[in-house]
């Protein structure tokens, strides 16, 4: 497997859009950066697409067949599909029926279902159509998802990508209001932790890429944009008003 570039990801989304899976899969994860920015590097090794896990549970065989037709082979027991061209695609689940972390999907195609994604996708403006075809998370939703993502190994990368997306859209009133609304849908302590995590990630990657880790090191040198993103995020969350 090899890291996908932006063109490949968008081309894949165009093909998915033209398939029966077209309105079912949403570009997300680090590869979702390709859907919202032409300048921010995604630094990812696979393509993540969101899918309604309850629909997968009901239509498992159809999903597997359509993915086969798109040239992807399923890896048993995983949510991963691989192509002969070397692309790796992961299904990531959300649910319209509940907001809980769990394993969903089917027996042959189990997928992780994330409460945060389920909540975000239940809110208005969570997705947008790509100009070339396909659906992606909107910029604000991707930023919120990245801020709220919980994972130890690649957590810094998630936060840095969120800050860069925020910085890139900082001048867009609609974006800021959208993101403010999304974050307000989550408990305050989650947002506080996300803010603290984002600041720690900024510090690590700006001061010492070895501490930041290999997943985040690619964002070294983007200090000013990251700082801008953090400043905007602090204002949006009201943290900036807590000045001593």
């Amino acid at each position, binding site marked *: 497997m090899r890291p996908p570039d932006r063109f490949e990801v968008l081309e894949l989304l165009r093909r998915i859009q033209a398939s029966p899976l077209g309105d079912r899969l949403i570009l997300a994860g680090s590869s979702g950066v390709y859907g919202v920015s032409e300048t921010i590097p995604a630094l990812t090794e696979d393509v993540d697409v969101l899918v309604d896990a309850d629909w997968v549970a009901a239509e498992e065989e159809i999903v597997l067949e359509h993915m086969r037709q798109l040239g992807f082979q399923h890896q048993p027991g995983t949510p991963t599909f691989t192509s002969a061209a070397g692309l790796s695609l992961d299904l990531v689940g959300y649910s319209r029926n509940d907001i809980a972390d769990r394993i969903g999907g089917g027996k042959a195609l189990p997928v992780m279902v994330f409460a945060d994604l389920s909540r975000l996708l239940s809110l208005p403006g969570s997705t947008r159509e790509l100009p070339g075809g396909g659906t992606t998370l909107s910029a604000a939703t991707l930023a919120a998802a990245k801020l709220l993502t919980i994972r*130890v190994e690649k957590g810094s990368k998630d936060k840095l990508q969120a800050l860069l997306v925020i910085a890139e859209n900082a001048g867009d009133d609609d974006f800021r209001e959208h993101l403010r609304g999304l974050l307000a849908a989550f408990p305050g302590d989650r947002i506080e932790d996300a803010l*603290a995590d984002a*600041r720690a990630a900024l510090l690590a990657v700006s001061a010492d890429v070895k501490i930041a880790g290999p997943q985040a090191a690619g964002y070294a040198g983007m200090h000013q944009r990251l700082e801008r993103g953090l400043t905007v995020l602090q204002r949006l969350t009201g*943290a900036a008003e807590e000045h*001593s």
Partner: protein
Amino acid sequence: MSVRPRTTAERWARFQRDQETYRRISLTRRSHERFRRDLAVVPHLFLLPGRARMAALQQPRDAVRAALRSEAIWTLDTAARLLTGLGLVTSPDLTGYMTESSFDRAVEEGLIGTPIAGGLSIDPLYHRPPMLIAHLADDPPPFTTLPSGDRVVTWQFLIRDIFGTLGWRPDLLTRLEARRPTAGIAEPLIT
């Protein structure tokens, strides 16, 4: 990516482990009263790569500080000592902002030695000679002038520099703020 993609069950187990780790981190943060207040701070990177320089002092620290008084704006340990009488770290360095020409002049006048390429740290893990650690800036940070004539960054900027250099250190910040001068400036205890 690993050779074999992780199964969903393996991902679930990892996610649960990560959630538990995050929960502990979150609780630890909240054990400090100042956690929420400090979320407002935007860190400033004093040791920003490409901007920071370091060279060993060639004269006594107070002499170098006096010689650079009108050109440097002290921060971090030096500012903390001047403002509160209490330092942040044990290494007896001078830390401040100045222009590149001021730094070069300090070299030419023998106040400091040849700039050192690596090992930039205000809190080294080993003993080294006292250093001048400078952040070269054409635009000076906000500062106040002390009765001694020394210039130090403002209190808010000092907090930003501490965040950007040492990370979030609630213990240290609380200790420092307890000695924050309310009116005027504390007696400088630079030694």
